[in-house]
């Protein structure tokens, strides 16, 4: 298992953003659904080793990220796209991706090819020499994805990756997700259930810091059976049914 978390908790002052979450994930695409403020981003930031858990056990890629040495090894094999992507406006797309490839400690000799591949895979090949300040929101998001995948990570964490992408780009991105999930653990946090339905093999639904559903997209869809849950698509109705059941 690339991700093993047991009873993971994260508090910010008196607020418990993540409240005793336990999950396991191996290779494949794992969807993390939930309403705003459910704790998805906090959970993802803990998995990305940005913040440390308040309590609980966390093992990533078979290592304990609590110690510096293992954490550094995890980070070499990690890709992360934060919800709010920061970037250096003066860097070109290729430089931005190269910068993170180098910071991820990739062998320098492999970096140029890896950068070219990542940029091509995100459809930014013709924008490789464009400054980031000149890109649209969707292109910036793809540049963020490119930096996340440049080191061919074993654990890829994507927070709202399709925000700002047009429908055509989202379709292409889902295909990319499925491809990446062939060998790596890809965890996608989103509130767009159609992304989960199209690309994920497993899905967890969070609400108020807890995982309230864990299973396949089909199983989530089935939760709507026999209910009058709201939604325009079967998966959406399953999502609404689970939340309604939890909150009732």
């Amino acid at each position: 298992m690339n991700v093993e978390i047991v009873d993971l908790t994260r508090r910010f002052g008196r607020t418990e953003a993540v409240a005793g979450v336990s999950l396991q994930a191996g290779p494949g695409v794992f969807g993390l659904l939930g309403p705003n403020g459910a704790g998805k981003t906090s959970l993802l930031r803990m998995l990305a080793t940005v913040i440390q858990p308040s309590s609980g056990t966390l093992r990533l890629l078979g290592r304990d990220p609590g110690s510096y040495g293992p954490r550094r090894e995890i980070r070499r094999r990690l890709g992360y796209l934060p919800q709010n992507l920061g970037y250096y406006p003066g860097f070109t797309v290729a430089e931005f991706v190269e910068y993170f490839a180098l910071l991820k400690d990739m062998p320098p000799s492999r970096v140029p090819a890896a950068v070219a591949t990542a940029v091509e895979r995100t459809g930014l090949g013709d924008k490789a020499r464009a400054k980031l300040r000149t890109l649209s929101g969707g292109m910036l998001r793809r540049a963020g994805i490119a930096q996340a995948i440049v080191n061919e990570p074993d654990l890829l964490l994507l927070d709202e990756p399709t925000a700002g992408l047009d429908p055509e780009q989202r379709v292409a991105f889902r295909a990319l997700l499925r491809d990446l999930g062939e060998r790596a653990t890809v965890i996608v946090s989103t509130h767009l259930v159609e992304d989960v339905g199209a690309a994920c093999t497993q899905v967890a639904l969070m609400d108020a810091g807890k995982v309230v559903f864990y299973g396949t997209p089909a199983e989530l869809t089935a939760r709507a059976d026999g209910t009058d849950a709201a939604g325009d698509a079967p998966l959406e109705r399953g999502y609404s049914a689970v939340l309604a059941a939890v909150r009732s």
Partner: protein
Amino acid sequence: MTAAVPAAPARRPRARRVPLALPGRLLRLELRRTIMPWILPLIVALFWLDGYHYAMSFPPFWGLRSPVLPDRAMVDFALFGAGASAWMGSRDGRSRTTDLLAITAVPRWGRQLVTWTATTGWAMAAYLGCVAVLYWSTARQGAWGGPPLWPVAVGAAGVAAGCALGFAAGAFFPSRFTAPLATLAVFILATAVKGGSGSTYGLISPVAPQGSFRPDSGLFFHYLPDLSIDQVLLLAGLAVAALGALGVPAASGGRWLRRSAAAVAAAGLVAAGTAIGLAGTARLEPYGVVIPALHDAASARPIPYTPVCGHAAIPVCLHPAYRAYLPAVTAALGPLLSEVTGLPGAPVRVVQVAYLNPTEFATGGAPTVAGRPALLRLPLGFAVLAQQTQTEFLLSRAAPVIVSSVIGGGPGAGPAQQAAEAGLLRAAGVQLAQLASMGSVYQPPAPGSPVYAAATRFAALPAAARHAWLLAHLAALRAGHITLEQLP
């Protein structure tokens, strides 16, 4: 976006590059994208208008032009370098890339050092380029001796320290306002120390007016590097402390790395503190600032040189660095020297000597006639030689001493001696009434007095007659056996 991994896009074949290690590649990237190259034209223009023209306003002496460097390096390069470095140091916070960068395998401290190196590298390259231009121009003008490197080192350390302090400020307080505030803070820090330069602690500031070098440094005596070493120690210590502090926070790296960073920061602080303490032990010596703990006695040895001399009967000999001034000095002293040529007690040569203290340099030193054969030892520097009234100034200092050495004047001189002195001076074109205003201690006879009348009479004699009379009667005149009436 594509699911399949495509082959890398075809590119034009390029010249094979030398493969760089990871820090080298990061540095290359940062060198391309740091803000510093954008503000370098402004800094270089500022140096050109301010530092370069100011330095070039001095005659081509290394000891005059090189001390401009530490001061202008701080004002022009370190201040703006601090601002640019603060901007780069705050980049992650301003660009909100902290989450992205927090999870990279390369420690934050290492990444920050690379960014600082790139920013400082540009500033340093520009500074050294400006130094090269200034030194090249000075060398082309025939400056004597070799260019001093310590002022360059102090300036370089100032640039590095300014950039390090600015970068640390930006990293710890990331905001768009940090850059201007860091620039202002470094400016205030520099000028505050400069303002307190009355004590020897104030000497340590690179912008302190009382620098390590005297105007004649490198001519008669070697440069004293004591204060420069101390300044480099302070500035390098500040730079190391600031850079070390970057690695102390928990997010900077592992425990070992953070401890190392803390040790580096502590070492920097110790170095800076030591430098300040050493500055307190400094003392001003004739040829520079001496700090006992850093002083090498060999530095105070005179520099051997062969003077350049004129061809008059009493030749004027100057340090070769002042070769250009030889005709002017010879012309200024020539009339008086020709009056006393061959007379007992007259100097056989005029030799330039170094000033003994900075005050002398500004006001002109006191010449003396001493030795056997007698030499007129004349402290001279560009401050005297470069001024419009150099002839009057030289005469006001040297003429009374020369005449006194021949006639034997002074406080106990008799009326005939006083009259002969005044007559000789007037015959040589010295305006007696102006001597006092030029700072001379010579007391001319009061107009209307018998001594004044005798002096006027003596000065009116043909030069040959006067010279012949002095040859015949000088011994009696010096012994006080000549009366005013006997004076021709």
